């Protein structure tokens, strides 16, 4: 009996101690789209934060692999059910729009003042995430995209990085003659093919008009847009792209490049990490910014940001976590976790990640960028854009009809907003 009493007392004490501990510690949920290797790189980062902040435990939740197609759904469901994460990952631009419009995202202007983030991260990334004069997020990644190519194939055929669009066309033509596809794309979800079309629009319409198109301030039914669609149709018709790619998953588009059947792929700075995890020889891959024929040469780039839901019960702690993840001191300790950082003064180790190092220099310089269309448009409108784009690739829609259809979709969308 005495033994039983001792056991009961110990168990009760343990329970009380455990409950007390659980009450003292706030759990901060951090939602991301990180894949397994990135999660691994982040484990020591979060462990360090947890160790330095005994009253908080940060737990990462990830929705890997789906890109912008599925992650917002998961986030929306968690918000609608009243159980959102305390800090969440989000791309820049319109993908965050519906959450902000619905009042689900906390404006962080006060925290910007408190922590001085405006002086910490690259200014262009803050411009991109500012909406109606308010800052709803803190940029942590600055991502740029370009054409990554196989160095061995370029050398084999005596090719060099193009300086003009005609140079690029000549490269594709040379590869085609030698039975190699110029580039590989995965058309499923639409956004990878969009990168090429965005580039064509930048070249045919020029920076100013391209920006107006993205803001729906200019008609899509105009000759320069027709010319962009025409280039897309021509690239398909001339066999410069790996065929039948419309429903190929974007990640699978890398396979023809790895096998040497295609020479290029339109990817971002993150591709260096992908090459490493796919065990590809890094020295065999370089990138260039596709030449636009305009000055300055703009390239596709976007920030990624941290946001705090309005309904988070730990907003101050969430902001403190964001600050800790944003400052250069933290990021310098974990360079592999903070590649493509938007933070000023965080340099990549050029020996470890040479391509990221190049991107970092570009993205924190005064180089000009344009947003990918899927960050300029709402999901509903961009799906209309993808529908037209697919039609052009499949030869179902002529370039002229595509421009007209795109303008009709833009007008219908604007009318819907007014109503």
């Amino acid at each position: 009996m005495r033994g039983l009493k001792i056991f009961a007392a110990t168990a009760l004490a343990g329970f009380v101690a455990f409950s007390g501990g659980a009450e003292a510690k706030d759990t901060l949920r951090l939602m991301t789209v990180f894949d397994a290797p990135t999660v691994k790189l982040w484990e020591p980062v979060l462990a360090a934060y947890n160790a330095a902040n005994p009253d908080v435990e940060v737990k990462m939740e990830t929705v890997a692999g789906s890109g912008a197609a599925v992650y917002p759904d998961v986030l929306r469901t968690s918000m609608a059910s009243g159980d959102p994460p305390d800090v969440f990952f989000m791309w820049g631009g319109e993908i965050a729009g519906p959450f902000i419009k619905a009042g689900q995202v906390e404006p962080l202007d006060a925290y910007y003042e408190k922590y001085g983030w405006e002086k910490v991260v690259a200014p262009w990334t803050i411009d991109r995430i500012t909406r109606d004069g308010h800052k709803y997020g803190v940029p942590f990644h600055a991502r740029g995209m370009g054409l990554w190519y196989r160095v061995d194939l370029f050398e084999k055929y005596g090719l060099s990085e193009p300086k003009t669009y005609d140079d690029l066309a000549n490269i594709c033509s040379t590869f085609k003659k030698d039975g190699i596809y110029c580039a590989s794309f995965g058309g499923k979800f639409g956004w990878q093919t969009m990168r090429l079309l965005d580039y064509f629009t930048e070249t045919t319409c020029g920076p100013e008009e391209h920006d107006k198109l993205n803001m729906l301030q200019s008609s899509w039914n105009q000759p320069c847009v027709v010319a962009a669609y025409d280039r897309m149709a021509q690239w398909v018709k001339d066999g410069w792209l790996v065929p039948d790619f419309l429903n190929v998953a974007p990640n699978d588009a890398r396979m023809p490049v790895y096998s040497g059947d295609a020479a290029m792929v339109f990817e971002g700075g993150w591709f260096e990490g992908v090459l490493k995890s796919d065990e590809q020889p890094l020295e065999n891959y370089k990138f260039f910014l596709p030449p636009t024929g305009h000055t300055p040469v703009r390239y596709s780039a976007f920030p990624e940001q941290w946001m705090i839901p309005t309904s988070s019960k730990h907003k101050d702690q969430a902001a403190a976590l964001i600050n800790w993840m944003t400052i250069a001191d933290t990021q310098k300790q974990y360079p592999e976790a903070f590649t493509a950082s938007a933070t000023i003064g965080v340099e990549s180790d050029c020996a470890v990640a040479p391509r990221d190092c190049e991107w970092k220099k570009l993205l924190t310089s005064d180089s000009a960028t344009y947003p990918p269309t899927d960050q300029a448009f709402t999901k509903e409108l961009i799906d209309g854009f993808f529908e037209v784009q697919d039609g052009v690739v499949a030869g179902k829609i002529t370039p002229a009809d595509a421009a007209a259809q795109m303008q009709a979709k833009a007008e219908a969308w604007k009318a819907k907003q007014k109503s």
Partner: protein
Amino acid sequence: MSEITLGARRPVIVRRRRWRIPVTAIPYLFLAPATLWYAAFLVYPMLQSLYVSFFDWDGLSPTMTFVGLENYINIFAVDEVARLALWNNILWTIGALALPTFFGLMLALALNRRAPASTLFRTIFYSPAVLPLVAVGLIWAWMYNPHFGVVNVTLKAVGLRSWANGWLSNYEMALPATFVTFIWSHVGFPMIFYLAGLQAISKDYYEAATIDGANAFQRFRHVTMPGLAETHVIVLSLAVINGFKVFDLVYTMTYGGPGRSTQVLGTWMYFQTFQYYHAGYGSALAWVIAAIVLVIAIPYIRRMSRG
């Protein structure tokens, strides 16, 4: 039950009235937990969804705007993709009625005998039915990959290079190619139902028919088919219901593309609700699907109840 009051000269017996549950109520008591569960997790959300379908709502904001029947009218009068999706559902359902049912019946007939490996084959043919459709969709999407997928690689290897195709990237082929996956994953269901139905048919009928000189086809026509009448109702009704409910395979294999060519009502409802933030319109689409399925399911349920 009775109690004795102490302290009194003579014991007073207080009779407490015994509360009895009427016998007729007992089945309802047993049903109550399941009914409550059903009401909370199915009926209430359904009614809530019906309510939402009369509003313009993004699914996130606190404000909802009443629009009456506008969402329903838009489905049939304005939204071209919804009409395409409905047409795709009709095609899918016709296919679901014909092909997996036919193959299921043929497999059941072949395996309804005491052959050494019949159990093994039953397991093999039924096993795709237990796999999650998301996994099935992803695996088949890889198999259909135009560059390294096993379908095109095999066709090229056996000299049928001209047959190799961008199965899921081709506007005309994407839906049929996805449907082939549906057949593969769903043929096990009718097979199991038909096997059960076949085993319920008395052997006496076959013996009598054989004595009367009926050949194999005549036995199938006049004994097997009438004997499977109840099974046909179940199998065909489920095929129609599954045909209209299709979502997973289309979502994972084509994402409704290329363009919108493989959108079905289920995926279009998902896109509207979760991707375009039109929860009201998405709910209306859900109710259109539900109405179609109910119209088909009611005769099935009535038949089942009678059985």
